[in-house]
C-alpha cells in the first residue's frame, strides 16, 4: 500500500478545499452574487458523493487503505457513513440556496456547513481516538455556530447556547473516557486497544468507568434518553435546515463513532454494553414516542420522533450480530433521508408562511398544516411520504430498515426487545397519521401558497432515495452488511 496514493481521500479533500475557498472568496464577493457560493458548495458535495460511489469501496468487505500511521482508514463502513453525511449536507445546501438567498453571511453559512460535513467524515474514517475526537469537535463547533445562525431570532440563539453548553460538557466527559482508555491500554489506536484488552484483560472497575463515560459522551450526540434533553429544544429553535443537518447528520456521527469505539475497540465489554443498550434502547424508543404524541410543534414532534428512531437504531448495539449491525447501519441511511426530508418539508412550510407574514410565531404549529394538501400539494405529498417512511409503512426505506432490523433481532432471540419495538412502531403511527390527517382531511387554513423550487428539489431528492431504498434495498443492504463486516463482527 503506497502512502503517496491519496486518491481515496478525494472526497475529504474536495470538501475541505471547497470549505476554505468559500470562506476566503466570500470576503470579496458582493452579497448579491453570494448565492453562487451555495451552488458551488452543492457541486462539491455531489462530486464527493459520486466519487464515493465510483471508487467501489462500498462493495468491499475488507479494509481498502489506511493513512497517517493507521489513524485514518478507508473501508465500506467509513464510506457508507460519508455517503450519509454528504447526502444530508447536499440536500440541506439545495434548500439553503433559497432560504439564505439574500443573507450577507452566506459565505460563513456554507463554510460552516462544509466544515461540519468534513468533521463528520473524519469521524467516520478515524481509527484512532484522537482523530475521532478532532473530527467530533470540528463537526460540533461548526454546528454550534450554525444552530445560532438566525442571529436576530432569540429562539435560535437560545438553541445554540443550550446545544453548546451541553455539547461541551459531554465532549469533556467523552474526552475523560478516552483518557481513561488510553491510560488503561497505553494506546489510542482502536484495533491496538482491542488487541491489548484481548491479551491483558481490563480491570472490571476500569472497564465500567470507561463504559459509563463513553456511553454518556456518545449517547449525547445520538440523543438517547436520558441524554436527549438538548435535542428537542435545539431542533425546535435552530433554523429548520440546520435541524435537518443535526438530526440526520450530526446524530449519525454519534452512531458511527459509537460503532467504532464500542464494537471495534471495546468488543471485550460486549456483555455489559448489551445490557446498557438494552435498557437505553427500550427507554429511548418508548419515551420518544410517548412524548412525541403530545407535541403541537411539528419540529418538536420530529425531534422526539428522532429520539425514538435513535432508540430503534441502538437495538443494533444490543443484538450485535452482523445482520443486526448491518440493519442498524441501513437504518441510519434511511433515517438520514427520511428525517432530512421531513425537516426540509417543515422548513418549506415555515418559509412559505413567514414570507407572507414576517415574525409569525410558531410557524411550525400543527394547525398551520391543516389542509396543506390544498395549499401546497407537492410539499404535502412529500411530507406524507417522509412521515409514512418514519412510521415504517411499505414501500419506503423506513419499512425495509425496520423489517431487517426486527428480523435480525428475532433471529438472534431478542423477542422482548422486538415486541417493545413493534408496539412502539404502532404507537408512533398515531402522531404520524395525525399529521397526514391534518394535511389531507382538514379544511385549508389559508390561501394557496407558492412552493419554493429549491425546497421542492431538495424534497424530490429525498423522496427518490426513500422510495428507492424501499423498493430495491438489496444494494444498500449489501453496503451496510459490508460495513458491518469490516468492523470484524
Amino acid at each position: 500500500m503506497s502512502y503517496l496514493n491519496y486518491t481515496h481521500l478525494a472526497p475529504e479533500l474536495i470538501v475541505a478545499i471547497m470549505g476554505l475557498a468559500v470562506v476566503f472568496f466570500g470576503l470579496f464577493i458582493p452579497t448579491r452574487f453570494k448565492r453562487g457560493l451555495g451552488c458551488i458548495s452543492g457541486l462539491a458535495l455531489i462530486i464527493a458523493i459520486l466519487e464515493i460511489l465510483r471508487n467501489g469501496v462500498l462493495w468491499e468487505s475488507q479494509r481498502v487503505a489506511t493513512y497517517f500511521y493507521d489513524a485514518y482508514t478507508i473501508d465500506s463502513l467509513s464510506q457508507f457513513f460519508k455517503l450519509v453525511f454528504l447526502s444530508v449536507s447536499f440536500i440541506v445546501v439545495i434548500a439553503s440556496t433559497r432560504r439564505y438567498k439574500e443573507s450577507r453571511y452566506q459565505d460563513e453559512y456554507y463554510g460552516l456547513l462544509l466544515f461540519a460535513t468534513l468533521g463528520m467524515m473524519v469521524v467516520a474514517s478515524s481509527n484512532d481516538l484522537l482523530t475521532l475526537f478532532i473530527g467530533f469537535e470540528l463537526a460540533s463547533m461548526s454546528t454550534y455556530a450554525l444552530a445560532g445562525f438566525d442571529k436576530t431570532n432569540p429562539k435560535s440563539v437560545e438553541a445554540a447556547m443550550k446545544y453548546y453548553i451541553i455539547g461541551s460538557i459531554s465532549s469533556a466527559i467523552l474526552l475523560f473516557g478516552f483518557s481513561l482508555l488510553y491510560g488503561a491500554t497505553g494506546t489510542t489506536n482502536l484495533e491496538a486497544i482491542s488487541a491489548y484488552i484481548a491479551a491483558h484483560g481490563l480491570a472490571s472497575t476500569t472497564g465500567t468507568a470507561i463504559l459509563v463515560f463513553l456511553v454518556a459522551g456518545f449517547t449525547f450526540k445520538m440523543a438517547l434518553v436520558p441524554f436527549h434533553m438538548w435535542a428537542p429544544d435545539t431542533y425546535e429553535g435552530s433554523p429548520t435546515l440546520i435541524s435537518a443537518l443535526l438530526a440526520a447528520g450530526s446524530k449519525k456521527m454519534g452512531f458511527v463513532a459509537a460503532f467504532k469505539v464500542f464494537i471495534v475497540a471495546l468488543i471485550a465489554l460486549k456483555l455489559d454494553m448489551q445490557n446498557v443498550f438494552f435498557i437505553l434502547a427500550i427507554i429511548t424508543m418508548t419515551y420518544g414516542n410517548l412524548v412525541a404524541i403530545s407535541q403541537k410543534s411539528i419540529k418538536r414532534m420530529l425531534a422526539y420522533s428522532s429520539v425514538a428512531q435513535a432508540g430503534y437504531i441502538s437495538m443494533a448495539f444490543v443484538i450485535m450480530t452482523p445482520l443486526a449491525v448491518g440493519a442498524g447501519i441501513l437504518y441510519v441511511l434511511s433515517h438520514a433521508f427520511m428525517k432530512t426530508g421531513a425537516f426540509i418539508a417543515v422548513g418549506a412550510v415555515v418559509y412559505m408562511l413567514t414570507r407572507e407574514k414576517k415574525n409569525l410565531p410558531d410557524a411550525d404549529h400543527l394547525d398551520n398544516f391543516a389542509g396543506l394538501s390544498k395549499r401546497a400539494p407537492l410539499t404535502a405529498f412529500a411530507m406524507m411520504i417522509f412521515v409514512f417512511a418514519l412510521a415504517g409503512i411499505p414501500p419506503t426505506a423506513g419499512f425495509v430498515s425496520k423489517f431487517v432490523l426486527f428480523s435480525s433481532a428475532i433471529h438472534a432471540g431478542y423477542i422482548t426487545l422486538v415486541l417493545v419495538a413493534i408496539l412502539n412502531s404502532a404507537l408512533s403511527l398515531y402522531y404520524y397519521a395525525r399529521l397526514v390527517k391534518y394535511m389531507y382531511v382538514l379544511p385549508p387554513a389559508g390561501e394557496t401558497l407558492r412552493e419554493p423550487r429549491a425546497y421542492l428539489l431538495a424534497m424530490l431528492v429525498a423522496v427518490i432515495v426513500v422510495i428507492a431504498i424501499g423498493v430495491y434495498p438489496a444494494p444498500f443492504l449489501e453496503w451496510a452488511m459490508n460495513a458491518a463486516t469490516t468492523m470484524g463482527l
Partner: protein
Amino acid sequence: MTLPLISLMILIPLVGAIISFLSRTRNQARIVAIIASIIPLIITIKMYLQVDPSTMWVVESYDWIPQLGITYKLGVDGISMPLILLANIVVPLTILFAWGETKRTSSFYGLLLLEQVGVIGVFSSLDFFLFYIFWEITLVPMYFLISIWGGPRKDYAAIKFFIYTHIASLVMLLAIFALYFIAWAQTGYPSFDIVHLLAQYPSFSPVVKDVIFFALLFGFIVKMPAVPFHTWLPDAHVEAPTAGSVVLAAILLKMGGYGLFRVMMPMLPNTTNTSLVITVVAIIGVVSIVYGAFLALAQKDLKKMVAYSSVSHMGFVTLGFASLVPLSVTGAMYQQFSHGLITCILFMSCGVIQHGAHTRIINDLGGLVQKMPKLTFLMLGGFLASLGLPGMSGFIAEFTVLTGSITTLFIYVMIAVFGGVAVTAAYHLWAIQRAMFGVFNEKLGHIHDLAGYEMLSMAILLLLVIFFGVNPDPVWDFMQAGANTLLAGVHII
C-alpha cells in the same frame, strides 16, 4: 427471449392505474382503464394455450433482498391460472359495467385497476413476502372504493371492512413470520419461498405447527368469509358501489379460497390431529352453507341477500377443501371460478335496480319486468345459475363438491347441506318473484332499463356462465391437474 408474462400482467394495470389517476377527463380515464385491464386478459389466454397445467410454469424469479431470502418470484399452475383468468375477465367487465360512472372518475377507474394488480399478484406470488404485500395492496383500493363511492353508512362499512380484514391479515402475517423464523433456525438460511417454507413445516414442534396452521386458516377464512367471521361482508357489500361489490365478491373473496388450496392443503396432513382439523374445517363449511342460506332467506334488502348468498356459496369451497378427494377439491376450485362469474351478474342486477328504482328493499319493488325486461332476463339467468340450475357453471361445482365429499362426510351432514341447497333455491326464486314479477308498484315511477354497456357486460358474463356450465373442461382440466398435484402429497385417507 421470453417475455416476463406474469410481471407484465401486473405491470400493465399498474401503469394504467397511474395514467388513470392522472387523467383529466372521464373519457381518458375509462378508455385507459379498459385497455389496461383487457391486455392482461389477452396475455392470460395466450398463456392458457401454451402450457401444461400439472407443473408450476412461467416462473419468474429475481433476487429482491437476498440477505433476508426475499425474492421476487412469480409463477402459475393449475390452482392459480383459472383464478387469474377469472380476475382478468371480471375487472374489464366491471369497468365496462361502470362505464357511466360520474363521480371522481379518474380515481374510480384507477382504484379498480389497482385491485387487478393486487389480485393477480396474490394469485401468482411464490414468495410469502411478496404474497403478503399484494394481499395488503388489495385492501387499500377497496377501502377507498367503499368510503368514497359508498352508500349512506359508507364510513362505518369501510372502516369495519378495513379493520376486520386487516386484523385477519396481521394474524396471517405473524404466522408467516413464525414459519420464516423457525425455518431459518432449522436450515440456517433465511427464505420466504412458499414451497421451501411448506417443506420445512412438517419438522416443526407440534404446538407450533398447530398455532401456525390455525393462524393462517383464520387469515384465509375471514377473507372468504366463513360463518363465524362473515359479519364484515354484508356491511361492506351493502354500502359499496356496484363495481366495488362486484370486485369484492368476485375476486377478493377468492383470495381466501386460493390461500386454502395453495398454503393450507400441503400443511393439513402434518398437523398434530389431522382428522380433528378436517372436521373443524368441514363444520365451518357446512355451517356457512346452511346458515348463510337461511340468513339470505331472511333479508329484506336484495343486495344484502346476494351478499349472504356469497357466504353460503363460499361454504362449498371450504367443504370441498376439507373433503380431500380430487373430485371435491377440483369442484371447490371450480366453485370459486363459477361463483366469481355468477355473483357479478347478481351484484350488477342489484346495482341497476338501485340506480333505477332508488331502493333495493324487496317488498318495495315488484313487477319490474314490465319496465326492465332486459334486466329481468339477465338477472333471472344469474339467479338460476346461482341456485344451481343444471347447464350452468354453479351446478357443476356444487354437484362435484357434494358427490366427492359424500364419501368422507357423515350422512346427516349431507342431509343438512342438501337442506341448505333447497333453501338456496327458495330464497332466489322467492326474491325474484317478489321483486321482478307480479304487480308493478306504481310508487316507483318511471324506470329506465339497462344501459347498453351494462347489458353487454352482463350478457357476456351470462354467456360465460352457460359456456362453463356446458363445457367445463377448459378450466376443469387445469384445476384437476392442480388438485391432483396437491393431493399427491396428502396421504391420510
